[in-house]
C-alpha cells in the first residue's frame, strides 16, 4: 500500500510517502492506524489525537473503518485550510 503524509504530519514524521506491505494484520484503516501508533515516538505523537487527522483512501475521504487492499493509496493529513 502507498501511504502519504501531508502538512504537519509530513513535517513531524519527516516523510511524505512510503510503501507499507499489505498484510491481513493491516487489512483495514483502524488496524493501520493502530500499527502507526506503535512505530515510535513521532508516530505515536502524530496519531495520538485522531480528531485532527483526516484519512483518505484512494483520494476519497473516509470516516469509520474501511477495508484496505494491496494497491490502495492511503493518505493522512490535518483538516484542510485552503481557499
Amino acid at each position, binding site marked *: 500500500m502507498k501511504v*502519504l503524509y*501531508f*502538512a*504537519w504530519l*509530513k*513535517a513531524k514524521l519527516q516523510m511524505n510517502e512510503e510503501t507499507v506491505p499489505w498484510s491481513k494484520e493491516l487489512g483495514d484503516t483502524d488496524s493501520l492506524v493502530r500499527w502507526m501508533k506503535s512505530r515510535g515516538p513521532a508516530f505515536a505523537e502524530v496519531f495520538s489525537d485522531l480528531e*485532527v487527522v483526516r484519512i*483518505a483512501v484512494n*483520494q*476519497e*475521504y473516509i470516516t469509520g473503518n474501511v477495508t484496505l487492499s494491496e494497491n490502495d493509496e492511503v*493518505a493522512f*493529513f*490535518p*483538516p*484542510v*485550510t*485552503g*481557499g
Partner: protein
Amino acid sequence: MIRVQRDIFDVGKEIDGLTRGRTDIGAIVSFIGLVRDFNDGAEVTGLSLEHYPGMTEKELEKIEKEARERWELQESLIIHRHGDMSLGEPIVLVITASPHRKDAFEAAHFLMDWLKTKAPFWKREMNADGQENWVKEREGDLMAANRWSSKTNERS
C-alpha cells in the same frame, strides 16, 4: 472548469475567457482570496500552500459539480494556487456565470465555503519572528460550509 497551479492568475483575463462572445449570460460573480498580512492577530510575512495532487483536482471537480446541480450556472471556474506566495498575492479564484444574479452569487459563495473545508490544501504561514506555523482549521469555516449542507438551494 478547475485548475490547480503555481502561477498567479489574471481575473480580468479569466472572466473574459469564460464569457467573451456570449450574449446569454446575465450575471458574473468572481471571488478572489488573497494573502493577508494578519491572521488571528499575528503578523504574517508570507504563505506557502501544500496540496494533495490528484485528490485536490477530484475534490474541486466534485464541489463544482455540486454547485452546477444546485444552481443554474452557464459557466464556472475554480483556480487554486499552491507553493510560495507573497503578501497581497491571489490564492484562489472562483467565477460563476448565470442568467440570474442570485444563482451566480450563491453558487460562488457556496464554492468558496465548501472548498475551504473539503479541498486538500494546507497553509503554512511565515510570521514576523521568522517562525512558520501551519494554519489551524476554523470553526467559522465549518459553520459556513454546513449552512449549505441541505440539498435545497434555499437558505434556512
